[in-house]
């Protein structure tokens, strides 16, 4: 069995599909440099996707309404954020950045771009 360590400190067996939604979130979040959990109908999610595309980043987007177990993931994200809004949620380099307000605040104060570069999502 092949074990993979991710940034959350869990040892997760590759073969299991992560029945715990929180684990699944963590796993998906660590698989790409920039991960966005979204709903295809949500306009704020659209805004955050446009923000990253405008920066030249190619984020991995998971549309939870198109996932069979999307509801569980939504609930897990709501718990994670302590919020009634599950999406949009952004992970960079496997680490949780937060919802739209955190993303925008970190872009304005100049910390977003260095994080993106560190995660390999941006060059230049």
């Amino acid at each position: 069995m092949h074990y993979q360590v991710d940034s959350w400190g869990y040892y997760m067996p590759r073969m299991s599909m992560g029945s715990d939604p929180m684990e699944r979130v963590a796993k998906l979040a660590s698989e790409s440099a920039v991960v966005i959990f979204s709903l295809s109908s949500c306009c704020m999610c659209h805004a955050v996707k446009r923000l990253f595309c405008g920066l030249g980043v190619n984020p991995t987007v998971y549309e939870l309404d198109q996932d069979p177990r999307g509801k569980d993931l939504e609930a897990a994200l709501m718990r994670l954020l302590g919020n009634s809004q599950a999406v949009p949620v952004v992970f960079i380099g496997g680490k949780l950045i937060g919802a739209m307000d955190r993303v925008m605040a970190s872009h304005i104060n100049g910390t977003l771009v260095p994080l993106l570069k560190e995660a390999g999502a941006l060059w230049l």
Partner: protein
Amino acid sequence: MNSPSTEFTRRMAIYEQFNQISRLGDVFNCGDSPNTGSSAIVEVDVGLENKAGYISCDQVEPSRSDQETNKPDDKTQRRLAQNREAARKSRIRKKAYVQELESSRLKLAQLEQELERTRQQGIYISSASDSGYFGLSGTVNPGISAFELEYGHWVEVQDKQTCELRNALQAHTTDIELQILVESGLNHYCNLFRIKAEAAKADVFYLNSGLWRTSAERFFHWIGGFRPSELLNVVMSHIEPLTDQQQLEVCHLRQSAQQAEDALSQGIDKLQHNLAQNVASDFSWGNYRAQMAVATDVLEALEGFVNQADHLREQTLLQMVRVLTTHQAARALLALGEYFHRLRALSSLWAAHPR
């Protein structure tokens, strides 16, 4: 004169001033400069031993206990004089603050009275034509009435603060006095965003439409207020000269504010597009439930955008102040205050202009 107890009292006075000043400093130097506040506390707590590493504050200088105890010399005299000066300034600031509090209390009492009267009369202030959803028109919206009153008061205080800034800059007051003004200016903007958030819960379409602003301001309207990128354009000529580092940071701020603005604009466009499609399609329009679902979704989404737009305005303001020196920040806030004041004045001219 230099007995241990007066020594201690004097040191406690210094400690208190450090606390005040370093707290103010923390607001403007978060992360950039060493946290002078806590090291000051540690220094004093560790004892009445003096360390040469006292913080650079022009009101206190390092001293050695063994030197002073027996010789009331120039150093001591100078230090005492500086302490007296610092204490005097502190008393002046405290007095100014207390006066401000008193006048605010009076104003608050007045406002509450007005509010009570307004609620009892059930005055409907927002525009009648577009405030009805699904035929519910002409209803009283106390949340909006309250907001209009609060906003009127906000503008008054804003104009007053702008005058204070102008006077302070002309009189060449110290950076510390300017810091206080800049901080209260920022707090005042944060208050605006707070009351807008409340109003958004009462009637987001009203807030988004900008009916509560004057016509000239509405000309530049973007999701419930001014464009963050507009902010930087307005203050640019007033904050120069900038160091190279500042030029870079201002440039980055401009860029990131524009990018965030564009992202939100695209989000709102999508919202409009979705709503238009919904309304135009025959499919779900038959039943009331579907209509209600669409209405609620759009309301919630729009509220989210208005809140994010205000959040962006707030962050842009805060970052701008972080990048600038105290004097530059004061000039920037003055420029901003004057700009909006002039727009409001222009609107009155237009309203009075005979056709």
